[in-house]
């Protein structure tokens, strides 16, 4: 942690984020628990938790190459997709009992096709169709919410039949409460970063967030509560930063990306990332009589969305500006994978919006593996020096 203290809870999170499997997940499996892997925050973990599963957000942590995946995906395809698929083929995800993929983008949904085609497929695999537009204000998301609810009901039924379980309304409500608790705790974690000398840096926060999507949820929440208590009692970090930054784009799983910022005197205090602040802004209605609909509504209207969702740009700009104000951000770094059309296009728009708002902005295209770290580091350094001066 920024203060130098390394509690055992924090070490646990770091361990969970640093590998695909972790002791808590293993213990869950050893006790007969089942794990469902899923891609994207659009896929509701509440449904899996209500079914007694451990939801595991897919990532490529530890991947060194895409040799196995290259038979299925071209080099023109998203590197995140290729690396996670490679890990799937290599057997790193042998612990999965099921896999749910969303229809978000051209690359991601082909994981479903290829996973079904590959010999290493999990017994349960499902392609979840989720809306790709927010519609227009007059629609108020209504057709999309109804449609997504029907798709969630279909997934629920398929899981019930396959695993011989029952996902009841009380279980769903209980899962919503549990996940809302996670969101509230994680939000508190982010709020700590509003201070002048944040106790946690970017890589530490990212690790804590990633661990949340890799561990049994009750255990994670309990550990996060403990960690927050420790942080509340810690003295402020004495480290000085020359620039407070926000990072925007798809998931960053590689700690060295944050190091490139830290090494040059910057600190990431807030983000708009798949594994980050995007998922903690709102909570799901816990009291509504139809929990599936509440879950659908949250995932259609209430989350800050990535650009896979049409119509989300205006909201993204508003979210970023709001975060820039709240977290006293000096500059925004937009990072994305080369093959990503939605993010790539969004960055072109974002450049204009940031310019209009007078917010310093840097765009970097990167690969999954940190092969260009020298070049990226130079650009980060120049950006940080430009907006904050050297320390």
């Amino acid at each position, binding site marked *: 942690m920024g203060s130098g203290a390394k509690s055992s809870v924090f070490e646990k999170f770091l361990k969970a984020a640093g590998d695909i499997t972790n002791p808590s997940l293993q213990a869950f499996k050893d006790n007969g628990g089942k794990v469902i892997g899923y891609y994207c925050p659009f896929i509701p973990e509440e449904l899996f938790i209500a079914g007694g599963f451990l939801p595991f957000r897919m990532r490529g942590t530890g991947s060194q190459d895409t040799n196995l995946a290259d038979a299925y995906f*071209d080099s023109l395809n998203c590197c995140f997709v290729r690396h996670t698929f490679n890990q799937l083929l290599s057997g790193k995800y042998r612990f999965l009992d099921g896999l749910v993929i969303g229809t978000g983008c*051209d690359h991601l949904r082909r994981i479903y096709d290829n996973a079904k085609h590959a010999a290493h497929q999990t017994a349960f695999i499902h392609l979840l169709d989720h809306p790709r537009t927010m519609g227009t204000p007059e629609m108020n998301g209504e057709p999309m919410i109804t449609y997504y609810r029907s798709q969630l009901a279909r997934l629920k039924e398929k899981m019930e039949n396959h695993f011989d379980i029952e996902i009841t309304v009380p279980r769903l409500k209980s899962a919503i409460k549990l996940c809302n608790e996670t969101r509230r705790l994680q939000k508190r974690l982010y709020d700590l970063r509003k201070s002048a000398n944040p106790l946690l840096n970017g890589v530490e926060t990212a690790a804590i967030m990633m661990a949340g999507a890799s561990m049994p949820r009750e255990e994670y929440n309990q550990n996060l509560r403990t960690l927050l208590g420790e942080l509340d009692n810690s003295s402020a970090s004495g480290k000085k930063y020359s620039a407070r930054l926000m990072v925007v784009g798809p998931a960053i799983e590689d700690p060295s990306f944050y190091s490139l910022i830290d090494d040059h005197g910057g600190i990431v205090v807030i983000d708009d990332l798949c594994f980050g602040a995007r998922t903690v802004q709102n909570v799901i209605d816990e009291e509504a009589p139809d929990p599936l609909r509440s879950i659908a509504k949250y995932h259609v209207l209430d989350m800050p969305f990535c650009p896979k969702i*049409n119509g989300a740009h205006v909201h993204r700009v508003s979210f970023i500006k709001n975060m820039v104000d709240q977290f006293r951000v000096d500059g925004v770094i937009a990072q994305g994978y080369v093959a990503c059309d939605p993010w790539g296009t969004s960055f072109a728009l974002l450049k204009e919006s940031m310019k209009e708002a007078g917010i310093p902005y840097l765009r970097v295209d990167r690969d999954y593996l940190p092969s260009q770290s020298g070049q990226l580091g130079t650009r980060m350094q120049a950006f940080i020096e430009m907006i904050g001066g050297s320390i």
Partner: protein
Amino acid sequence: MNTVNNEAVVDVYTQLKLDFAALTAKSFQARLNKFVENKTPIVACNDDFFPELFTAMELPYYFSVRQGLEGAFHIGKGPEAVDGYSELGGSSSLCSLQKAAAYLLMKGMLPKPIAILMTSTSCDAQTAVNELMSNYQPWADVPRISVDASFEKDEASMAYLGRQWMDCIPFIEKATGRKLDLDRLRDVCEESNKQCGLMFDFQELRRAAPSPIRADWGFIAYMTARWAACGRPEATAWLQRLYDATAQRVKAGLGIDGVKEKIRYAWFDILPCWSDKLFPRLEETFGAVNLMDLYGFNAPWPVIDTSSLESIFTSLAKRFLIGNPMTRQIFALSSVYGNDAVNIAKDFKCDAMIMPSHVGHKDGSASHKIVKDMFREIGIPFLVVGCDVFDERYMSPDVVFEKISTFFETAGLTGR
């Protein structure tokens, strides 16, 4: 005409091409021009998005794909637009066609529409351009709708898309000042049913060996029925003439003029803008004839049920999701593309299948193995090219020719 004179038939096709150009000019371009001159209503939308509705309401419309294609590539300005888009900060991986469209948009070269109608298909590039269009500041005051197209293709999903679109009618009427007349819509849909039927029957004729005409006629038939003059009787008459002329060629056993057909293959993606640098050369060198492409595809188009407004819109949604080539092939499981390709190979008696794998079609780049394995099972040679069908600078037509030549030779298809 009972006997077929080859020269006379060639004349029929020349006339058909001229008439196609005139039809496009009259039905499509003239309305756009009228907008520019007189500020009459216009809408911008996705490719093949319920064109029957636009004809019924006499709404001139354009869409980014077509503008990219005709506004840039077909007038030789494609590379300039592609490079220009990148300089404007756009995504380097975007499909060249959408780059060109985005460039035209961002440089203020597209007419300002009175309404923007968008759907969340058919590929990431298209929806990315939708987002650009939605956030283009000079068009900030243009009313817009964005409807969600399901990836699922079951009845409920078709109804979902149809219902959203139907619910948008008041919006379109308000934005354009045009009223939708149900009887007129029904007439247009019935005419469109005839056109899609003719288009399918025409494409079936191309199963004949030797192939009676070049593959680009499939795309021209598609453009006539779906883009240029959907639901207009003059387009039906044009398609009927195309069918009749081609049927006569089949009956007479005529192949493509001047080509001794030796290899039958399908190029299963969009026909390249540089087709003239590839296909005639393959014909001349190997007697290799391309039988089919993505837009000339012979899937039966769902018939529009005109019994009620709801049934019309559900049918239009079906057409959009499982008829429209881009949505059918790209916005679907890999097996849909694979099965369609396999069926073409079998039905059209192909000796080989070529998957051009246009660089902008990222879904296709992720389907190679699945489709290749399907072809291995049926024992038909299969090649993945990996070119840019719009921008020949990515892989030159010469290199594509060499790749295909080597493939034909390796597969033992030459020297027959």
